[in-house]
């Protein structure tokens, strides 16, 4: 019964999501556009500097993937706060659906969309990207889903804390993007003052970036144990915190 409700809810949420053109563009379009436009504009000049080569080979695919994780988190945060404000969560809570089932359906949907977008990115990349993509798609998908799950759990903490739906998206952006800036993706970590390096080490975004860079470059999972552990620890901590402070109305 509950499982039937879970699939039905996930399916309906998917349809509801697709009916919103802007959300669809942000989730699927933006990472793809960034990846292809930047890749094609920088690709031809790659030989001029090692920096540009690294950018095209690793930084850009990881950046596009992080955009997917961020858009999943931002959209989850705003959906939850809009649903809460509109009484939708409360209405669903007055049915036999357990609260956990409702939230799980949303997380599941976000992860599926992330995997779908990544698949599109690979397909488009094979055709249009300036260099050949040699990464193991399955391995990278797993890494991205782990990273996204961990960032989504941080999103739940933010969704629990924001007072109204109007604040949800700006607050999410104000937290996630600075974390990306100090994650070591664009500028090496040791370029930052020690205090920022410490913040970066505590941030799931840093470990997500590091994991994705490693797997994208073909490093084995055995070299990623620290990152995997950090992402799982962040997930456990954030889930515990949001279970405590989450509000249904």
């Amino acid at each position, binding site marked *: *019964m509950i499982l039937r409700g879970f699939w039905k809810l996930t399916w*309906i949420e998917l349809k509801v999501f697709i009916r919103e053109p802007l959300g669809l563009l942000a989730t699927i379009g933006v990472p793809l556009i960034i990846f292809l436009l930047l890749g094609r504009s920088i690709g031809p000049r790659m030989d001029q500097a090692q920096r540009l080569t690294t950018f095209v080979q690793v930084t850009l695919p990881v950046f596009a993937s992080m955009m997917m994780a961020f858009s999943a988190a931002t959209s989850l945060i705003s959906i939850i706060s809009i649903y809460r404000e509109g*009484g939708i969560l*409360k*209405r669903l809570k007055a049915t036999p659906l357990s609260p956990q089932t409702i939230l799980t359906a949303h997380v599941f949907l976000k992860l599926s969309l992330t995997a779908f977008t990544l698949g599109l990115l690979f397909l488009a990349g094979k055709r249009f990207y300036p260099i050949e993509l040699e990464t193991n798609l399955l391995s990278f998908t797993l890494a991205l889903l782990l990273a996204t799950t961990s960032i989504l759990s941080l999103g739940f903490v933010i969704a629990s804390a924001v007072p109204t739906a109007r604040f949800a998206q700006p607050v999410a952006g104000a937290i996630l993007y600075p974390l990306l800036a100090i994650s070591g993706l664009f500028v090496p970590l040791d370029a930052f003052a020690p205090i920022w390096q410490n913040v970066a080490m505590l941030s799931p975004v840093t470990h997500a970036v590091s994991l994705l860079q490693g797997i994208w470059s073909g490093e084995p999972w055995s070299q990623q144990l620290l990152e995997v552990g950090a992402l799982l620890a962040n997930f456990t901590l954030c889930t515990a915190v949001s279970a405590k402070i989450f509000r249904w109305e």
Partner: protein
Amino acid sequence: MPSVVSVQGLRKVYGSTVAVDDVSFEVLEGEIFGLIGPNGAGKTTTMECTEGLRQPDRGTIRVLSKDPAKDADELQNRIGVQLQQAHLQKRIKVWEAVDLWASLYPQTVDGDALLERLGLDTKRDAWFMTLSGGQKQRLFIALALIHDPELVFLDELTTGLDPQARRTIWSLITDIRDQGKTVLLTTHLMEEAERLCDRVAIIEHGRVIEIDTPAALVRRHCPQRSVAFSTDWDGSTDTFQTIQGLDSVQRADRTYTLAGQGDDFVTEVIQCISQQSIRVTDFRTILPTLEDVFLELTGHGIRD
């Protein structure tokens, strides 16, 4: 008749605000029972504690002989809930909502037939955000009825609706009762309570101040009734002083208003008019309403 809902000594506090102070009432099988009172009186909190959505701070609640705080899972299959000011996903279609809700319960009625009964069959494929206020509320009634519950909770169902949509909803609620279900509703509209409810509890400041049928409450607290008529007749108001139970006579231009008490008062007035051969061009009786009862009991109007 057996009691379907029993609330005894309910108290609920939010921070330093006492939302419900001491509320007790019983809802009997097959009746429409209304919790009535102004906004902020504690109606919704009382209802949400009864539905199992909130934990009371004190008091005993039994719904279908179960404790809603403990047996929520079992009760959810037997009660139908409509929440105040609820929404659905903006772009969910009417049939999708009904289909989702139907998938959550072991036994359900036919969704399409239900939509037809509620006059929503033409809106099957419409997005929630495109529905009118009355259509949204009818959809929420459908969702509350999809699993054929024994007891239905309706919270401020017609607030914000235009009079015509309101009347449609009223007749739907009467239908629910006529199918043998019990209805517990809240409203701050006295006309609604009077039209719909078999019995009402008047709540103010988190306390129940009266429980009875609307008619009994009116008889008890506002026994006075008035007769107003217009006429070209130009006699003295003293003519009416002989009428049994008369309290006052007022004259404004060509309209006389006679107020008095007693079941025979209106008959007496008619006889008097007839005896005096007064030619009347307009005649109406003005009966007190729940609104007057509320004013009498609390000293202020419900919308103050």
